[in-house]
């Protein structure tokens, strides 16, 4: 699938592109340095569209902001696709040469007229039309997204629906045109690259592929299971069924980060044995039978991380870890020794060199080159290779060297936590500029702009509820309730409220959210919760 695995483009491309669509992403806050590149593009003349339920700090820079209903992304994408087709703005040559399944796809979006799109997304038809036409007719265009797209129960479909747009218009595989998912954490990309996915080995090699697996088995001298494993949400289901009785968690805080945290904690507590390896005594670690104190990867040990433009970069140890804390790699090696496997104590670079011998796309990335060149973008098969600026250039080759890229017909489904008289408001979540995930790390410095855990309300809603700026409100969802300080905020609209995820101790928003997850990617539904808000008498 295009766009899976890694962003197709480099940051520098957005600086000279003609059109930028920022979809479900408040990059100005969540990915500020990516936004620097984006702003260079805007200043160089690129037109910018923002698609987001809120008029965020990022959306304010857009020529046009489309304020969609939470969870209507697919409806919007399908409407745009329908309009591009209906207006005859498709790149027919590209579709014929480089894609498959167009007719079927065209039929699947036929119902998505501008009127239908407006009805479902809430965005005026004219604005949708404008986005469709400008995207289709731009010389080059970058379509960028982040968690607003992927933290939904239908995350994979969301992404597929965006890829369809690139395939319709040929906005992929050329300098300046591409699909750009910006990752939430510094090494999500790297984790995927390294095979931290249920169905992959390092370098996106398939566990089900005998040849791929064989290489690893030969190197490691063990059998690698040929069956895909479970992703996080499936693991919790397995715990619920009793299929998982013990767990070893490294550097995750599911007790606070998972949607529906009450259920998560219950399940973790119900395990026979829980090991947590972390740099903090997190809420999850507090539930563990054994806690292994780890060094902070980015400052207290050597290693690599891969960025959203597929750039692999070396991280060097700056500090000695505190107390008994150890490098993750050392902990694993020591454990392996205990378990009777003599790995010795390999350095990060030695492990990396083994990886390079097994994962072709990393082959040319020696530590020396990575440090000299400020990182390299995969694929980089050998030491003479300069790294790869953008992916999928093959789509433009003649003859096409691979199977054409398939369109995917994607059905829109409304958010699975429906609004009702009892839960009439839509609560969506996201990041603030100075916060990070569950706030364990970002709580460690004194940010002058920290808001603490608050809920942002539209002034109209606040007035209806009789809530002044600074009042405490009770927010109730179908799963639980929390009390939290309310703040009047521009950028919302009546019926839409927003909370950041960084202050679970003030206000644990995941008490409210839903554990429905995307069956394809395993991401849970964080973005669309139905709630009721009431003032609390103090």
């Amino acid at each position, binding site marked *: 699938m295009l766009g899976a695995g890694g962003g197709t483009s480099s940051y520098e491309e957005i600086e000279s592109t003609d059109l930028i669509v920022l979809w479900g992403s408040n990059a100005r806050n969540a990915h500020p340095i990516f936004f620097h590149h984006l702003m260079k593009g805007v*200043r160089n003349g690129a037109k*910018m569209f923002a698609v987001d339920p809120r008029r965020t700090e990022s959306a*304010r820079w*857009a*020529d046009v902001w489309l*304020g969609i209903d939470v969870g209507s992304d697919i409806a919007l994408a399908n409407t745009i696709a329908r309009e591009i087709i209906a207006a005859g703005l498709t790149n027919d040559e590209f579709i014929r040469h480089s894609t498959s399944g167009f007719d079927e796809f065209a039929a699947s979006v036929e119902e998505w007229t501008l009127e239908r799109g407006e009805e479902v997304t809430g965005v005026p038809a004219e*604005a949708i039309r404008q986005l469709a036409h400008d995207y289709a007719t731009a010389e080059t265009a970058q379509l960028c997204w982040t968690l607003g797209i992927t933290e939904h129960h239908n995350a994979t479909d969301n992404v597929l629906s965006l890829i369809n747009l690139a395939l319709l218009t040929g906005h992929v595989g050329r300098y300046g045109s591409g699909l750009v998912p910006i990752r939430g954490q510094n090494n999500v990309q790297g984790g995927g690259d390294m095979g931290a996915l249920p169905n992959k080995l390092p370098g996106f090699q398939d566990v089900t592929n005998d040849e791929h697996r064989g290489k690893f088995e030969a190197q490691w001298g063990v059998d690698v299971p040929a069956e895909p494993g479970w992703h996080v949400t499936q693991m919790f289901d397995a715990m619920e069924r009793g299929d998982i009785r013990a767990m070893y968690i490294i550097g995750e805080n599911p007790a606070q980060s998972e949607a529906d945290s009450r259920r998560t904690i219950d399940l973790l507590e119900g395990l026979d044995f829980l090991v947590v390896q972390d740099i903090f005594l997190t809420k999850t670690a507090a539930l563990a039978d054994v806690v292994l104190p780890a060094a902070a990867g980015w400052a207290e040990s050597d290693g690599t991380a891969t960025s959203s433009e597929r750039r692999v970069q070396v991280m060097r140890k700056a500090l000695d870890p505190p107390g008994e804390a150890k490098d993750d790699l050392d902990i694993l090696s020591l454990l392996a020794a205990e378990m009777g496997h003599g790995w010795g104590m390999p350095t990060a670079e030695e492990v990396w060199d083994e990886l390079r011998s097994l994962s072709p796309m990393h082959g040319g990335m020696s530590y020396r080159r990575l440090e000299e060149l400020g990182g390299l973008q995969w694929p980089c098969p050998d030491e003479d290779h300069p790294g790869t600026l953008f992916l999928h250039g093959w789509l433009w080759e003649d003859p096409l060297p691979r199977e054409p890229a398939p369109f995917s017909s994607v059905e829109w489904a409304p958010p699975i936590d429906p609004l009702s008289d009892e839960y009439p408001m839509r609560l969506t979540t996201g990041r603030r500029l100075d916060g990070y995930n569950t706030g364990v790390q970002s709580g460690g410095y004194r940010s002058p702009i920290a808001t603490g855990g608050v809920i942002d309300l539209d002034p109209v809603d606040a007035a209806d509820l009789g809530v002044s700026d600074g009042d405490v409100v009770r927010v109730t969802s179908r799963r639980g309730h929390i009390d939290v300080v309310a703040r009047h905020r521009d950028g919302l609209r009546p019926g839409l409220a927003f909370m950041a995820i960084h202050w679970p101790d003030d206000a644990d928003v995941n008490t409210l959210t839903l554990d429905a997850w995307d069956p394809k990617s395993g991401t849970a539904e964080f973005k669309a919760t139905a709630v009721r808000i009431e003032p609390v008498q103090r």
Partner: protein
Amino acid sequence: MLGIPDSRWHGGERTAGGDRVAYGGFHRAAARRHLLLPALHALQDAIGWVSHGALNYVSERLDLGPAEAYGVATFYDLIATEHAPPVVAHVCDDIACLAKGASRIVDELEAALGPAGEHGDAAPWKRSPCLGQCEKGSAAFIQCAGASARSIAPVTAEQVIDIVTSGSADDAVAPTTSAQDRSDLRLLAILDDEGDMGLYRSKGGYEGLARALEIGPAASVAEVEASGIRGRGGAAFPAGIKWRAVTEHEGVKYVVCNADESEPGTFKDRVLLEGDPFAVIEGLTIAGVTTGAQQGYLYLRGEYPVAFRRLSEALESAREAGLLGPDIAGSGRTFDIEIRRGAGAYICGEETALFNSIEGFRGEPRQKPPFPTDAGLFGRPTLVNNVETLANIPAILRDGGAAYAEIGTAQSTGPKLFCVSGNVASPGVYEVEFGATIRELIELAGGVDGALRAVLIGGAAGSFVDASQLDMPLTFEDTRAAQLGLGSGVIIAFNESIDMHTIVARIADFFGEESCGLCVPCRVGTVRQHESLVRISEGGDRAAELEILDELDHVLRDASVCGLGQAASSAVQSAIRLGLI
């Protein structure tokens, strides 16, 4: 000023659709930024200052950071960012007025009203650099919250005290008089049309435009080239070269009339704008239709309220007469002119600073190249000419460039206005053909009052000459040969009663006050120059100070970004050479 906000996102009412879509962003903000200075003016005019809340509102409406808007507001002397009294008087204490006793007025005001204010504070009166009313002998510019600004010249201390205590003022400008017989003058022939289009047309007005439209751009540019006219704004650059360069560019372009006249001792542009606005408008219109610009700007000194009113009326009559707008004189050509008011900053007369000022940025000059003819206002090719330069254009087109070139000398063609002030019997604007000497001009103005000590030619950025140089012809070539500059046509005579230390120090102070602050040589050097002159007049080590001044002269001339810093030591050095200080 900013119009009704078009959405809730820019300070307007909420609508259901507006919750779902917003048009805005960088490009729109960039396209609207030029409204910043007019918006600040509007606040200043209405309320007398720009409060924090007001600044925030303007910033929101224009999608600007409040710090940016604040940076622009605090750049200008006429925009107050602190609670100011409803009426504030800016009283000239600059060199021409000093020669006529301005220090007395200043002393009396200090005694009655307390010390003069500094930028941004709440004092009811401030010292002002030259207000362009030098021939009147004294001058004040009055800002009135809720009413339009006023000029008063000549002015007395009693008048100022009365105005700031009573809180109201009317214009009280003595009429522009001239001791010259105007019957066969060219530029000053009509000084009283005051916006009377019929009078202007009865004397050949708009025939130049008609001819320009008839012969087309290429031939019109050729006429300007043939006329040999050089710019009258101070830099003396051949106008034809600029006209050709802009005309040859493709795409959107602009023409700008530089009416920021702030060079101390200069008031000729004001006299033209107040007395004969159509000549300037016609000149700019010819520039527009010739170069292919559809929009012209007239950047008018903020302290010229009378000119503002007359020009506004004249523009309106020109539009009514079809001489501006979508179809100029039936030619199918579109051209219109907008007045932009300056806000009290000498530097904004420098052409690139002027662009920044119009565009809504701080009025700091830009690095040249690129030159305005390639990348000027809004980054587009731009023709900038001085008021007087443009006032010559109608005649050049009407009578032909060759006929114009007959006037004056071979290298300095045409008629020229001189602003004669200081210790002369009849200060005023005098028109001569290039070639007249300093002595002749002083005589036109009735001769020196008392014994002549020195003459400043060219303005604060110019040089002093003494009695031995009075027979120098005032042409570009002769003044250049004498290593002086004609500048903007200033002649200020000082007699023996004047303390030249005070005059020279005031010039140095002027540059310190007016430096935009962008570049180090000028920002710090101009102030160091003033300090050194003060030390000299207080009896400091003269030899050491002269060394300092010499060193400053070098770095100012050689390393300043723009003409302000490059000329800031010129008058001082000439005063030293002549032994005036």
